[in-house]
């Protein structure tokens, strides 16, 4: 891991109308997979929203390395029904490549998004964000809708991306997944 972190949070308190999470301090380095675990409603997604500028920072600060390129996978993909966009186009849109996709998705690159299952769509969005040109990737509940094979493939893909030098921040309520894939874990309480 490089000495200079990609992202550093110092005593951060963030939320929307009122604080939802914090105070919290953490660092994310290049090549690291950092987990943020905790029960539903503890502010995990709000933390990511604060990092990407869509939640309010009440106190503390977020420091990003100059020129840092962030990629964010949202917990819920946007409504895509009725739009004639296929899986290959979605991956190409973020600049990600299709090489290395699991076979059960690689064979469906020509399918429209609204013809894919929930798990296939989830993995596709994950892939498009994970493999996009970025220095740090933020993943919000990446195992949602995935079957065990999908989760196993995701674990391998995360490790490979980290080995390439990206810093990964993984938010999940799935303690087993976080324990299996993350090099460090920050646990959030359920009060806020």
């Amino acid at each position: 891991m490089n000495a200079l972190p990609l992202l550093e949070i110092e005593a951060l308190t963030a939320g929307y109308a009122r604080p939802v999470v914090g105070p919290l301090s953490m660092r994310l380095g290049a090549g690291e997979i950092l987990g943020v675990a905790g029960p539903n409603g503890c502010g995990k997604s709000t933390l990511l929203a604060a990092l990407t500028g869509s939640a309010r920072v009440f106190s503390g600060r977020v420091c990003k390395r100059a020129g840092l390129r962030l990629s964010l996978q949202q917990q819920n993909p946007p409504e895509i029904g009725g739009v004639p966009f296929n899986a290959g186009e979605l991956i190409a849109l973020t600049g990600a490549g299709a090489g290395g996709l699991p076979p059960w998705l690689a064979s469906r690159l020509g399918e429209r998004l609204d013809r894919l299952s929930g798990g296939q769509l989830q993995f596709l969005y994950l892939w498009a964000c994970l493999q996009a040109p970025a220095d740090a990737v933020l993943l919000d509940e990446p195992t949602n809708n995935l079957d065990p094979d999908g989760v196993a493939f995701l674990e391998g893909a995360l490790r490979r991306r980290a080995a390439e030098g990206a810093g990964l921040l993984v938010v999940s309520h799935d303690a087993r997944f976080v324990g299996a894939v993350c090099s460090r874990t920050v646990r959030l309480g359920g009060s806020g």
Partner: protein
Amino acid sequence: MNGMNPGVLDILFDPLFAEPFATGLIFAVLLPLLGCYLRLRDEWLAALAFAQTAAAGSLLAMLFGLPLALGGLAAAGLAAGLKHVFEGAARGAQGAAYAMLLLLGWGVSVLLVANLPLAERMGHALFDGQLYFTDRAHLAAAGAFAALAAFALRGLSRRLLLAHFFPDFYRARGLSERRAHFAFDLLIAGALALATMSVGVMGAFAMIFVPPLIAFAWAKSWRRSVLLAVGCGVLAYLAAFALALVLDQPFGPLLGLLLVAAGVGSALLRRLAGHD
């Protein structure tokens, strides 16, 4: 073609109609193309509001002795600016804003038409479409705008698609997509303002709304949907242009009815094929 009345062919290939035909053809390509992105953003009501506002602007320009195109473009541009103000609002509030714009444009137009004899004739032309009376200036404006739109869309396309499928893509990188959205709104407003002056308010709206509706149902990719929408628009335009000349009917309503028939036919075909 052998069995066709020579008089009909004479009408269709009369050089008098060459410039109007080319002007309409430009919009038959441009409007469905832009309409695909408008449908992606689920903002078709904004298109109708822009077209109606452009018509009101043209009539106001005529009242003050200014070029109609200037008035239409200015009014549609103003409407795009107002839409931009509501960009961050909830979807319901956005829809309400577009409906208000639509009503404003309609109210101003109808009052002008009712009270000014000169506006009455022009009002009918704007609502019915006056394609056969367009001249070289209309053609030049349409061509120049289409070239500008094609150039701008090359840069805007990926941004608009990213904003739809990855709403936080730019924000996560500390960038904003609001300028791209505003630029797109100005493109839509400009295209509709110019198209309204040739194919009419509802003809322009039909052209920007129906071909993407058909294409989105059938296409398996974005690229194919754009090609299919443009193909539908051009075919409907060619049929409406010929029918309007041969049957001596107003172009705009014929175009609208042909596109509605195509839209209904497409939906029925999908149902029969078991797609829906």
